[in-house]
């Protein structure tokens, strides 16, 4: 029998795609496998062990920087999501008005500037403010993280708002709902998945940040990524693999949640 002609087929594409997935997962798999290595150095496989997870768990610096990471990510993501939600409501579903393009550019600005440049800029400004005010707490990190989280939170919220049928709110107004009641009973419930997606995105982005944190942090303000960067520079033990594996699991968890939230269509 003649082979059916598949219009979608392109020669070699499937193999390249498989290769791509293989390349994407090979390093991660290696990393995870070696986290379970019962050996002091990474080099040689000595057998399965949870030993390095223990070591990491009992490492005060790891726990401390993890907690700091979560604190910063939670506060920054929340602040970013609230302000991004408000900004998204202000910049969608309207006739163009003076300042609208300016707002888009402004809000998305952190996405367009290389992280290292923002990091350097913040270092310059914050080091001056630290001298003036004498305050050197986590506030600087929270402010910096909030700023670069805003565009990430803004993205899915704005997308959700733009795909929302304007007629729904018109219908609510027609059915005697005031502006506030329309927002509360119609807009907000429909926007909720977008807000949640934005919040998770902002949280992950904050949790992942290395460069800006590295430049803004004061002494003793390591987050988990900056702590790990310092360790990798010094030469590595499987402890870093263990921490990475735990971090990886967390990321997968959040991505999975994100996936389901953003896929939920109404």
């Amino acid at each position, binding site marked *: 029998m003649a082979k059916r002609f598949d219009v979608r087929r392109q020669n070699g594409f499937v193999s390249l795609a498989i290769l791509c*997935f293989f390349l*994407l997962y090979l390093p*991660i798999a290696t990393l995870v496998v070696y986290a379970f290595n019962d050996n002091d150095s990474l*080099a040689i496989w000595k057998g399965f062990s949870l030993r390095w997870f223990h070591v990491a768990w009992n490492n005060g610096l790891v726990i401390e920087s993890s907690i700091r990471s979560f604190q910063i990510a939670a506060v920054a993501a929340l602040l970013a999501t609230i302000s991004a939600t408000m900004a998204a409501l202000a910049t969608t579903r309207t006739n163009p008005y003076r300042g609208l393009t300016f707002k888009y550019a402004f*809000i998305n600005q952190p996405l367009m500037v290389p992280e290292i440049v923002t990091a350097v800029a913040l270092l310059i400004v914050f080091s001056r403010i630290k001298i003036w005010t004498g305050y050197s707490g986590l506030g600087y990190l929270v402010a910096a993280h909030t700023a*670069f989280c805003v565009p990430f939170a803004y993205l899915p919220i704005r997308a959700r708002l733009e795909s929302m049928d304007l007629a729904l709110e018109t219908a609510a107004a027609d059915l005697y709902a005031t502006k506030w009641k329309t927002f509360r009973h119609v807009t907000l419930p429909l926007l909720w998945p977008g807000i949640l997606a934005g919040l998770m995105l902002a949280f992950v982005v904050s949790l992942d940040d290395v460069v800006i944190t590295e430049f803004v942090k004061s002494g003793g303000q390591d987050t988990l990524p900056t702590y790990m*960067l310092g360790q990798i520079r010094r030469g590595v033990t499987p402890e870093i693999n263990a921490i990475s594996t735990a971090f990886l699991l967390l990321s997968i968890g*959040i991505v999975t949640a994100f996936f389901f939230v953003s896929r939920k269509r109404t």
Partner: protein
Amino acid sequence: MATASEVAEQAERDDIRLRWLLSAPALLIVFLAALGPLLIVVVYSFLTPGNYGDVKWQFSTDAWVSVLFERDVFDDTVSFATAYLSIFWRSVSLSLATTVLTLTLGFPTAYFIATRPDHRRDIWLFLITIPFWTNLLIRTFAMQEVLRNDGIINSALQLLGIADHPVQLMYTNFAVLAGMVYVFLPLMVLPLYASMEKIDFRLVEAGYDLYATRFEVLRRIIVPLVTPGIVAGSILVFIPSLGAYVTPRVLGGGTNLMIGNLIELQFGQGRNWPLGAALSITLMVIVMVALLFYVRNTTRSDGAHG
């Protein structure tokens, strides 16, 4: 009593005021902790370096001069700053190479995902998103696991008898390139997929119906249709590659610097903040040029499609 048009104008004014009020917090935080400081960087690039980092408030164009030229310590002659230029050149060429390689790998992958049956696409997409959301440092570190002297590649080479002693892969340009391709690959696949998902395969059928070969269908139908995705993906990869800091630092060691690392040096050991500021602005200008190219490209294709 107010006439209808007065009511309408008042409503519009109220609406715009509310819209400014609502966007104020986001604008404020971005201004305070992102955009505002950038303006200060411009100021700093025209100051004199302080003795122990920071700056002296004296106007100077030295930083900008030294971005391009170097002054000989002994006879004060000025020549091109080959060290910095070579780093800029390495950054740009590595970023271009990263873009080309991610496109080569990413295009078939995105196409592969887009041509799966509907219910299975999400799974493949999910497999792309996981690395995307995994900490960049962790992914870079994972690449180090593969590349180091006792890593997978070297073990495999020795096991197969191709090499009898470890090949030095770490701390080379190759390592930086491999790391960046690895790290930025999902950024290429996702926008490519987004535009491939929209391909109307009846157009492809029409192509075959009109005697096109597979390659001609790819070149004359599919590629033109997904051009916006190719451009978006390339920009999304090129820009962060150019500003990459973590990947060259971990995989490139101290010798294979990119612009990002060079900037950092000025704020660390170099203690030359104005130079760091000038280099930052230079980097930003290159990025802006790339973005401008992108914007022009997308608006033009929008126009073409009506």
